[in-house]
């Protein structure tokens, strides 16, 4: 059998695995791989400006297409720069394979130039990782890495390849799928759990579906099934930040997002429910608030592909370890087989309508300032009017929460945000990745003035690959979310949360060959948004919004769902030490 170099084996495997795009940055320890990719006819390499950018692009690509994102970086600083994005992908269960160059095997452990212990550093921020010291093992490892990254609970996998292994040769033939010795994620639910869940659902008087990112990860079919089971049972649906779009925001049973910045009706429904069906969510602290007051009178069913998510934070009555889509299909089949009908939930809905009447997302407006919520609402209206496929990414902060609250998502894979890690600098590269995977979609990054600066260098990447991404900055001249917490907790001592010395974003746009638009006041808002959408290439919009707006509703850390702050009048400006100590 003809032998191939490690680098060629890698490229061959990527082809076999259907990889179309690699986000990367070259360096000494990956030169053989870059040579193998030189002018490659089918694998497109996107040259980023910083390795963190590559990881978030891969995440954006993966989240919006359902395919794994692939990253290629050099040893040492290339690998360490990728760590934030790898951790982000772990927290949000994004399938990603990161290939890192390493110093040659004989130099490992000698503090060689650009040596870092990549497998050591990434051991706990990956689903799994490998150091491959033999080119003959490379093909098997790469195929296994993609399998692990994309199955079960998806996540990032790192493959560290020493430079001499990229050059040394080994026989290559496409590996046959083999059963893994120890990795067997459970995807099909046990019948008993499905049975209990269906019977509890049929008997419930105040049920709620609490859905999360697992529904998105399971694939579009899972969203369809969620809609079906919601329709069959008539139960209301809420979602975490990560799950938005799985159930349509325009759907009749939609309560809005739950949790710290969730709606009044979503959080009260959780608090008063007699049955919570948790579908691919993980009872995160941003969702539960104070644990001993979380959904006190309810029984709980938890569907999750990761057994370690079950009973981790909240004890549940029925645990269903399975792929969400598969479990929902089983539940629907059994519901129909038993001839169940939707119960009369009119009392429950009347209660919910009472909470809805609070209009918890409302905000006061004035003639001079653009309210950030209004900017998002107008963006939503304008986007919907285009009839195009819309993908929204966000950075992290108030703007992220306002986007989650005021932009409506009707389909999965259209909302890309950093939930678990809350990584500022995620949104813009994620938009580039999403645009790579969805060339015809309108991809908009809703950003903050501070966050956007964390990976702003990627403007060059968008220019180079002619990607028409839009950055819509809600510029409040503050790290608004930090400022809000300081207002709530530290009597408005705004320690280091003012965005001083901001660049002129319009000039910056021009410097990179983009279009820059400034929106100064309410009168320009609609036209500015329209101009952004109508401009063919990449556009940055500096939308000047009210500087001191706060994001409401808000359940302060450690408070119960029923202790929600609805407007500024409820802010005291100080907190107990116990509350201050929470994140």
């Amino acid at each position: 059998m003809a032998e191939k170099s490690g680098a060629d084996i890698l490229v061959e495997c990527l082809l076999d695995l259907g990889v179309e795009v690699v986000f990367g940055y070259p360096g000494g320890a990956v030169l053989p791989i870059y040579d193998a990719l030189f002018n490659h006819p089918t694998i497109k390499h996107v040259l980023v400006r910083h390795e963190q950018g590559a990881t978030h692009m891969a995440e954006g690509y993966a989240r919006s297409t359902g395919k794994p994102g692939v990253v290629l970086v050099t040893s040492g600083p290339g690998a360490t720069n990728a760590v934030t994005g790898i951790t982000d992908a772990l927290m949000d269960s994004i399938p990603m394979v990161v290939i890192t160059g390493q110093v040659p095997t004989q130099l490992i452990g000698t503090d060689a130039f650009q040596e870092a212990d990549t497998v050591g550093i990434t051991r706990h921020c990956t689903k799994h990782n490998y150091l491959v010291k033999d080119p003959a093992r490379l093909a098997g490892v790469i195929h296994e890495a993609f399998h692990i990254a994309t199955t079960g609970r998806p996540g990032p996998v790192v493959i560290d390849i020493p430079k001499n292994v990229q050059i040394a040769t080994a026989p290559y033939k496409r590996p046959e799928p083999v059963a893994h010795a120890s990795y067997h994620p459970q995807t099909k639910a046990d019948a008993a759990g499905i049975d209990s869940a269906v019977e509890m659902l049929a008997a419930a008087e105040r049920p709620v579906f609490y859905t999360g990112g697992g529904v998105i990860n399971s694939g579009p079919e899972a969203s369809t099934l969620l809609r079906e089971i919601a329709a069959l049972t008539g139960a209301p649906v809420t979602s975490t930040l990560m799950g938005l779009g799985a159930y349509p925001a325009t759907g009749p049973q939609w309560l809005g997002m739950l949790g710290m910045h969730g709606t009044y009706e979503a959080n009260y429904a959780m608090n008063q429910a007699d049955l919570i069906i948790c579908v691919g969510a993980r009872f995160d602290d941003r969702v539960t608030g104070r644990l001993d007051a979380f959904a006190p009178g309810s029984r709980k069913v938890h569907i999750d592909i990761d057994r370690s998510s079950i009973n981790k934070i909240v004890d549940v009555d029925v645990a269903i370890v399975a792929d969400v889509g598969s479990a929902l299909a089983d539940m629907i089949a059994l519901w129909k087989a038993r001839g169940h009908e939707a119960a009369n939930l009119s009392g429950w809905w009347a209660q919910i309508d009472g909470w809805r009447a609070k209009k918890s997302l409302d905000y006061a407006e004035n003639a001079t300032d653009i309210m950030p919520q209004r900017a998002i609402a107008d963006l939503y209206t304008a986007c919907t009017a285009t009839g195009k496929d819309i993908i929204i990414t966000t950075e992290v902060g108030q703007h992220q929460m306002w986007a989650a609250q005021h932009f409506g998502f009707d389909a999965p894979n259209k909302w890309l945000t950093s939930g678990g890690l809350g990584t500022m600098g995620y949104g813009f590269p994620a938009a580039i990745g999403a645009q790579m995977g969805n060339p015809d979609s309108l991809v908009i990054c809703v950003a903050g003035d501070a966050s956007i600066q964390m990976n702003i260098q990627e403007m060059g990447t968008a220019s180079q690959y002619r990607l028409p991404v839009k950055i819509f900055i809600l510029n409040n001249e503050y790290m608004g979310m930090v400022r809000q917490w300081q207002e709530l907790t530290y009597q408005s001592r705004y320690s280091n949360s003012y965005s001083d010395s901001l660049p002129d974003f319009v000039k910056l746009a021009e410097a990179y060959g983009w279009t820059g638009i400034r929106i100064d006041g309410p009168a320009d808002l609609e036209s500015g948004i329209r101009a952004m959408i109508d401009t063919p290439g990449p556009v940055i919009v500096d939308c000047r919004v009210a500087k001191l707006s706060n994001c409401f509703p808000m359940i302060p850390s450690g408070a119960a769902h029923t202790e929600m702050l609805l407007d500024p009048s409820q802010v005291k400006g100080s907190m107990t030490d116990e509350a201050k100590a929470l994140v």
Partner: protein
Amino acid sequence: MHIQEELNQRHVLSLTVSNEAGILARIAGLFTARGYNIDSLTVADITPDHGVSRITIVTSGPPKVIDQIMAQLDRLVPVHKVTDLTESGPFVERELALVKVAGIGEDRIEALRLADVFRAKVVDTTIESFIFEITGTTDKVDNFVGLMRQIGLVEVGRTGVVGLIRGKDAI
């Protein structure tokens, strides 16, 4: 404000894992990263091809934390099987210790007498010292070491616990 602590229970966990580079770091690191306790950890390969190792971990925590530890270990890719010996019926646990004791005269005789009671073996001796080898449960070894401390304990080496479920079946 003061930090609250929870009540702990001792559990012996037995894992089979693929014997690959970094596996120990992966497991030990999981315990540190998630703030779980390790009282002892032993590892050795157990198959003719050296492909699989058994790791025995003695840990402690509230029941909910033990359940999390099991689930977290189980989702590591190279982990084949995790069993909580403490929960899965009667089991045998042993550890081995080497205990060096120095002394002369009556102390020497007392040390030998106690060793006999504990069925510890003398594996090295000089005119002024013994090294005893003792095998047993952690409690038994603790007791023996405690008594030797009163006689003239010099130092101790312990293997940590290994355990197997009783009866004819594998776990």
